[in-house]
């Protein structure tokens, strides 16, 4: 097991963390191109496990690429590059995020 202290791991996670709004809002409130950090997913337990496994887990940075049905977000890098996930509006509205300031 890599021997990394909890403190250094936390600082590694937050190294490039921009300041975020403290209030969590539904993902669907992001505008196109805006970035945010996932707070939690309020979807059903099956959907929640699936979303977490797909990479939508707390503290992960995302960028909104397309609003509406479906809503498209980028998990890594800019829109168009890296990992893009399409979400039905119904499920996207249950993913809570902190919008980057």
């Amino acid at each position, binding site marked *: *097991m890599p021997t990394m202290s909890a403190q250094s791991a936390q600082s590694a996670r937050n190294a490039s963390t921009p300041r975020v709004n403290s209030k969590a809002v539904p993902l669907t409130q992001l505008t196109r191109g805006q970035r945010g950090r996932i707070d939690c997913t309020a979807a059903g337990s099956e959907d929640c496990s*699936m979303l977490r496994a797909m990479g939508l887990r707390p503290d*992960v940075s995302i960028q909104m690429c397309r609003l509406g049905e479906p809503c*498209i977000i980028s*998990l890594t890098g*800019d829109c*168009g*590059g890296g990992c893009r996930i399409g979400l039905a509006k*119904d499920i996207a509205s249950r993913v809570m995020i902190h919008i980057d300031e």
Partner: protein
Amino acid sequence: MPTTSPDSLATSTRRTIAVLGNPNVGKTTLFNRIAGIRAKTSNFPGTTQEARIAHIRLATQDHADTESVLIDLPGIYSLHLDLSESKVCADVLDGTAAPAGEEAHKPDALLVVIDATNLMRNLSIVGESIAKRLPTLVAVNMIDSARRRGIHIDAAKLAECLGCPVVLCSARTGEGLEELAEALAHPKIPDRTAPTDQLGIERWADDIYAAVSMPTDQSTEQPADDKLTDRLDRAFTHPVLGLLSFTLIMTGLFWMIFKLASYPMDWIDLWFGAVGSWVGSLIPEGAIHDMVVDGVIAGVGGTVIFLPQICLLFFLLALLEGSGYLARAAFVIDRALRPFGLSGHAFVPLLSSHACAIPGIMAARAIPDKRDRIATILVAPFMSCTARIPVYVLLTTILFPTRPLLQAYAFTMCYAMGIFAGLFTSLLFRRTILRGKSRPMALELPSYRLPDLKSALLLTFDRGVVFLKKAGTLILAISIVLWWLGAYPHSAPTQAANDLRAQAQSIVDPEQADTLLAQADALDTRNAAANSFLGRIGTTFQPAFAPLGYDRQLTVGVLASFAAREVFVSTMAVQVAGSDDVDDDTVLESIANATNDDGSPIFTYATSWSLLFFYVLASLCLPTLVVTAKEAGGWKWALLQLGWMSLLAYTAAFAAYQFIISAGGT
């Protein structure tokens, strides 16, 4: 059972290597690179999951050319999700499941393929794999793509963190593949561990990611193809543009299936016709001659003729999937299907069902939610398959003989009615026995790329073989049974036919004599059809179909259609005209003008509408029921499908017939 000790690997003669990874990480491309074309698709018994298997030779230090079995497992996000593919992968790693034809035991090695452009998420499945304590090798794929985006990964540090070998590679460019093949011969049980709970693994993945990823080069510009991907995504999922492009692409797909498949279908038809004549000339007239020519060759030909359409459908769908478009199309169609309790995942199965319900139902395997999947399977046979086309052609021609525009409207109505009945069925079932909302879609959108022709061809070949094996054997058996029921017992020539023949002998004009002889033959054939086992079954069941306006001969046609719908036209031809050559216009005319024993026409206006409704809605295909039972997980679903479709078909046909009769129609 092979042990998982690395020491024992050197002495083992045949090793099993499981290939695991998230979807869209280039796992199958990497597998094809290593395995070449020697791979085959195999099912996991008792599930709808499948894997590709290849026998390869790897040169190890201890043994040159060690034979290894490479198993490409389904792409999964986690081993612990409540999904069939996750369970299958977990069972394979635990040694309790194996693809058909392989012995179930713990794999001797595990190759975990991860995406270099999305390392943080992919590390979770590496953590889960490490916990299995198998000799492991991690391939960090798409390293070329990661570099272009300014992502740098410290492979040595990653190997140190994971405690097992790590190879940076690109299946697309071939970079690192030699090193990977070498490393495959020497996997190692990781000397590190990972947490087993989800939160623990996430934290563990974050820690490793922070340790191995070099700071992103902020000066790297967004690659041009990324901008294009973003634009295409917005166009293909746009409410108007998305629907328009979807319609265009699907029209093109259908056009190619119907247009291009017609050539090989004609060749197959001609070839089987020639083989039938040739074999027929070798075997003396009699029961064996009839069985081989009319039963075996006609039965095999009748099945193989659909092969070009099936292959073309799977080939084009594989190309579309490989291009990355299908994931976007699923979202477009999701908007339309959701109100009826179906998800966008149902789109490919329902589209495929317009060619044939069997591959359509098989394609439903990809639907993650079980209730969504069963609803799709139950609905699929309502889509008008190609086997219905000959029946639609016959009945619309009878209904509107001189009005092609009305024929076209009636034809379109049949397709629309099938789709409407399917959506209504889904709505009903999702509110009763399959209660619950359709699961909202969450799909990874893979990058657009040129589809891999080789992968598409390999998949098409596998699907073609599966179709021939599954449907071919069954339809062949049914064709022989149906031929036998229709041909036996033999009937002696009738008195009326003998009188006609005697009359023909006394006539000088050879043309008139031939006409009389043909009439005599037709009378005998019709009599034989009426007295055959099939004819007697028709007489027995006719009262049940009387309220729909069907006489004995139509009842036989409908009953024979349970083997396959298209059998209706040839069965009617045999019964009424004494000839089964339905390509001949005059035969279609004689079906249209056929009369009952009392001289009244069989195909009245009311009867024809009644039959048309019946054929749109009825579950007249035994192979479909067999596949439904297999894919939905039990005969109860196949029986429900049969019962429900029969009920709908009977009710609609009854209503149509009685309405027209009561309105003064004929």
